[in-house]
């Protein structure tokens, strides 16, 4: 079969022409593209590849066109000479293209490895970053915890320092009160005695009345100091429902403060009872409200009193109170507030920011003492210019305790007579006091054997123990203190009633006195009425 050769010639010429045209264009395009981004490796590679392909395409197309023209013109001999050169160029370009491809392949491999390592590195960096972020979080948490612990430590240290300071001030105040009471006792006693002997119309009676009033004021002040230092033993703690007491007190306060101060009450009537002295609680609220009123005196404001029950966990509260139910009494004002230093010193006795004559500096000290003696805690939260909130936590009494305490309270409140004819042994190292009490008790009908030396008194008792119906002794005495004397007396006669009087003592409490046989524990200065009542009560009990 014979096929026409012309199609071969035509496609060869037309195709070669087009190939030639596009190859040259490819070269131009590639060069332009490469120049757009000179640093691009891929563009370099494509340019070299285009160069090689264009060389091949141009040489081939050019060669084929020449071939066809020569063959058509019958110049086979010329073509035979040119043909190998054209073919050799093509072969060379094939080799170059292969070489460029290998280069590209290597570039690709390196790039692949680079990409792999880069990805690996990125992954490692990501992992490490995550680890670092976690470590950072843990570290932040630790730092926060440490900061909190440091703050807690600082707060506790502050609390401890404050407690120790208050304790020291209390001890000092108590010591002063002791001596002061010993001085006041004969002053009051002799004044009362003399007043009793004088006509009420006389000028001397009037003068002595002023002495008695002043002495009583001094006695009240000492009492306040002792209230602060928690050394008073005359508290009548009984179960008290605070809500009616607070409401009643607020009514009184409302009447005494100006209308520019609004009083808001949030009293929970179901807050429950506490074991307290109602008079002292009344005093606490009056003192706090007075302070709040004075803080808002100039501009007015809101006085908020709230009362409700709270449950505190020992490890969750910052008050140092044990786990249990408490009654929280808050008194808040919107007054001038206090700075940190003032807050820290607020409970110190005689510390005041008020002008001379406007405040005694005993208000919060008394509150502090009362609250502490009730087993509670006082917290002061104040900001300058914003106001002050004082929170008081008192232990709540449960129902069984309430019933028992009520019963005991009723027993104590029975009225007693004062006179008697029994034989009393009276011992005090202060002669003036012994003399005054002797006269005072003799006036009530008692027979008195006084001693200023406790050892002599003990000897006298040893000789005739049955002669004495009751012993009244001071605590602080040289040689034989009141407690030791009492112990000796009880050894001799177990049922002898003993009353221990003291100005102040840090070594004896009412509980301990009871343990060693002391029936009654009285704080000086003891009024004649009070002493007479206690004597009568003890003697009547023994009958």
């Amino acid at each position, binding site marked *: *079969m*014979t*096929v*026409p*050769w*012309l*199609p*071969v010639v035509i*496609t*060869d010429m*037309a*195709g*070669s022409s*087009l*190939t030639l045209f*596009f*190859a040259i*264009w*490819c070269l131009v*395009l*590639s060069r*332009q*593209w*490469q*120049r*757009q*981004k*000179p*640093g691009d*490796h891929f563009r*370099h590679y*494509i340019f*070299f590849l*285009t160069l090689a*392909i264009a060389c*091949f395409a141009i040489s081939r197309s050019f060669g*084929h066109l020449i071939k066809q023209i020569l063959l*058509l013109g019958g110049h086979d001999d010329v*073509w*035979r000479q040119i*043909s*190998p*050169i054209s*073919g*050799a160029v*093509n*072969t*060379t370009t*094939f*080799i170059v*293209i*292969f*070489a*460029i*491809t*290998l*280069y*590209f*392949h*290597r570039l690709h491999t390196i790039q692949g490895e680079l990409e792999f390592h880069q990805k690996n590195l990125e992954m490692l960096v990501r992992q490490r970053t995550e680890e670092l972020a976690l470590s950072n979080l843990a570290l932040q948490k630790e730092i926060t915890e440490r900061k909190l612990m440091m703050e807690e430590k600082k707060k506790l240290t502050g609390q401890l320092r404050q407690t120790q300071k208050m304790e020291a001030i209390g001890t000092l105040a108590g010591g002063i009160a002791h001596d002061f009471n010993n001085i006041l006792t004969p002053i009051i006693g002799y004044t009362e005695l003399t007043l009793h002997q004088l006509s009420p119309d006389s000028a001397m009676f009037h003068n002595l009345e002023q002495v008695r009033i002043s002495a009583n004021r001094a006695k009240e002040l000492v009492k306040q100091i002792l209230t602060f230092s928690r050394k008073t033993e005359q508290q009548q703690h009984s179960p008290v429902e605070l809500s009616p007491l607070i409401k009643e007190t607020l009514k009184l306060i409302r009447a005494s403060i100006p209308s520019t101060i609004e009083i808001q009450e949030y009293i929970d009537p179901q807050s429950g009872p506490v074991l307290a002295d109602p008079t002292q609680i009344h005093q606490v609220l009056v003192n706090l409200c007075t302070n709040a009123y004075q803080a808002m005196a100039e501009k007015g404001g809101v006085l908020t009193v709230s009362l409700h029950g709270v449950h505190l966990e020992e490890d969750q509260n910052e008050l140092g109170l044990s786990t249990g139910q408490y009654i929280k009494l808050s008194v808040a004002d919107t007054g001038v507030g206090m700075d940190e230093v003032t807050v820290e010193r607020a409970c110190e006795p005689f510390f005041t920011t008020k002008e001379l004559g406007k405040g005694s500096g005993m208000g919060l000290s008394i509150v502090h003492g009362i609250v502490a003696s009730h087993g509670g805690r006082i917290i002061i939260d104040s900001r300058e210019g914003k106001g002050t909130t004082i929170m008081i936590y008192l232990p709540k009494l449960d129902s069984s305790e309430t019933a028992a305490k009520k019963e005991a309270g009723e027993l104590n409140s029975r009225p007693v007579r004062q006179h008697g004819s029994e034989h009393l042994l009276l011992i005090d190292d202060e002669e003036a006091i012994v003399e005054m009490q002797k006269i005072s008790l003799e006036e009530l009908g008692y027979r008195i054997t006084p001693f200023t030396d406790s050892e002599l008194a003990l000897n006298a008792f040893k000789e005739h123990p049955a002669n004495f119906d009751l012993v009244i002794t001071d605590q602080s005495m040289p040689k034989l203190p009141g407690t030791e004397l009492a112990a000796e007396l009880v050894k001799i006669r177990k049922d002898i009633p003993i009353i221990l009087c003291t100005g102040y003592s840090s070594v004896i409490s009412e509980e301990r006195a009871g343990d060693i046989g002391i029936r009654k524990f009285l704080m000086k200065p003891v009024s004649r009425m009070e002493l007479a009542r206690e004597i009568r009560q003890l003697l009547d009990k023994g009958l």
Partner: protein
Amino acid sequence: MSSRAQQVFAVKRLIATNRKKILSLGVLPLLMLGSTPALAIQRHGGIEGLAAHQLGHLLFLTGLGIILINIHQRGLKGAGWPQFKAFLRLAILWNILTFAGHWAGEQVTQEQFTASDELAKGFQISSPGDILFYLSGLDNLILTPAILFFFLALRKWRSAA
């Protein structure tokens, strides 16, 4: 670094990294020296030699194949890449056709070209190799589109840049 310096650096790097391959490829000119003289119908005789040319075709084909595989491996897509792949496929096909055509052309004689004058008017086909030879003469039907696709790929890349 300037673009000129970068090009020089790229070429130096190409030579340095492919030194062994370039040396081994240097054997090809020796093959060319040992070839036979070209006939009227023999396209790659003389100093070039058919063997060297066929080997060149194989290298060209291999190179294009490597590029195509690399493109597939890297998952290169987007502007220009479909055209470039079309170019590679057509160029590979062209290489196969011309490689076979050269081989078939060895069996073709001058007498198979029937001519009324100096111009060849017809080609006598007497074997499948003759058909292959005739078809390889029409190789521009593949090569021209291939170059056209390469041109299109370059144009796309330039436009996308």
